């Protein structure tokens, strides 16, 4: 039986369809669940929070959604070991909810993806490399070592920020699952296009069942996304950033 994955939609979410489609192409039974259907979340094996502007970023990006009834189910599921992935605004919500990095109390954030250092929105293709052992985060465990994952950094608030000592702790203890990389696979803080601390693109929690990733792999996930695709290749075939979603579904199949 295919794993059931809920793709959560809040007022203001805008990336739910491609997120759902990619999960389906990678082998999951993925369905879109709206904020008015929170009670149904108990029937799902895993949750994905897509990008957008939940509740118009009121107060702070992700702040209101983190207190939505949908997050009650996500928090309960995550604490029970279910897999949770948040992308872009979904990642911001997971940090506001305290699920990532999860070093403090629930809904008492210790870090944030906040305003870019340059003070404005960016949209550029980036490469990500897992910089922790495969066993550290189950969602990313099936990725080959040193694989470069393409994604799109499309955000005004994608810079990881926290107290310096906490950032060092996240770095030292393997919470930073993915970092921005160059084409040779090198990672360095200056490669983060928005000044993210330690070059961080994604955080996990202590248990490794939550992944908050800022750039969008699902926007570089089918051949039709690639202008330089091989002539004659199937435009609808998954490629590029789809590997992370495939790894997510593989992790669910191993449960």
């Amino acid at each position, binding site marked *: 039986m295919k794993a059931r994955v809920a793709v959560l939609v809040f007022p203001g979410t805008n990336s739910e369809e491609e997120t759902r489609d990619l999960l389906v192409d990678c082998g999951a039974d993925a369905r879109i669940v709206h904020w008015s259907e929170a009670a149904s979340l108990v029937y799902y094996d895993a949750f994905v929070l897509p990008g957008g502007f939940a509740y118009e970023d*009121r107060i702070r990006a992700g*702040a209101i959604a983190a207190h939505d009834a949908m997050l009650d189910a996500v928090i309960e599921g995550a604490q029970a070991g279910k897999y949770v992935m948040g992308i872009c605004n979904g990642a911001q919500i997971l940090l506001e909810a305290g699920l990532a990095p999860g070093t403090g109390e629930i809904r*008492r954030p210790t870090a944030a993806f906040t305003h870019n250092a340059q003070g404005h929105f960016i949209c550029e293709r980036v490469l990500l490399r897992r910089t922790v052992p495969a066993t550290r985060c189950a969602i990313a465990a099936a990725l080959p070592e040193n694989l470069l994952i393409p994604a799109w950094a499309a955000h005004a608030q994608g810079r990881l920020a926290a107290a310096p000592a906490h950032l060092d702790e996240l770095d030292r203890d393997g919470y930073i699952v993915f970092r921005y990389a160059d084409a040779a696979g090198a990672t360095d803080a200056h490669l983060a296009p928005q000044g993210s601390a330690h070059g961080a693109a994604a955080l996990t929690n202590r248990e490794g069942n939550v992944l908050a990733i800022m750039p969008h792999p699902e926007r570089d996930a089918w051949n039709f996304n690639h202008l330089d695709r091989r002539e004659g290749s199937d435009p609808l075939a998954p490629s590029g950033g789809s590997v992370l979603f495939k790894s997510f579904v593989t992790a669910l199949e191993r449960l």
Partner: protein
Amino acid sequence: MERVFAVELKIPDNEAFTAMRALQRLGVAVARVQRADILLFTGDEGEERLAASIERDERLFNPNKHRLEHVPSAHPREGEVWIEAIDAPRSLPMRRLVGWRLYDNAGKPLGNDDLDAACARLLCNPAIERAIR
């Protein structure tokens, strides 16, 4: 010398309403929320010149939906907290904060304990913001 102005919506403030509903869901006894952009200037510029320059800057002020108020003190009033980003990039020549004024059922400014709870539970992310009381 510090001069402070508040830019507040004169049309319904959906963000303040959302904050009120979220705080009520979190158990904070709040009945009304007012939100304003707090603009804090340091220097010798006169109050009238500053007010005029704010009203001319469309990044800060739209006369069709905003009202501008001079705040006599450089400190939040009773029942009010100012939230400031710790290291946000600054593109304007002043500090820009968000002011939240919270009122109880009787229309009185919220007490310190409830205001603390509102900050800790929703209005301020201490990883990236400071709450000024």
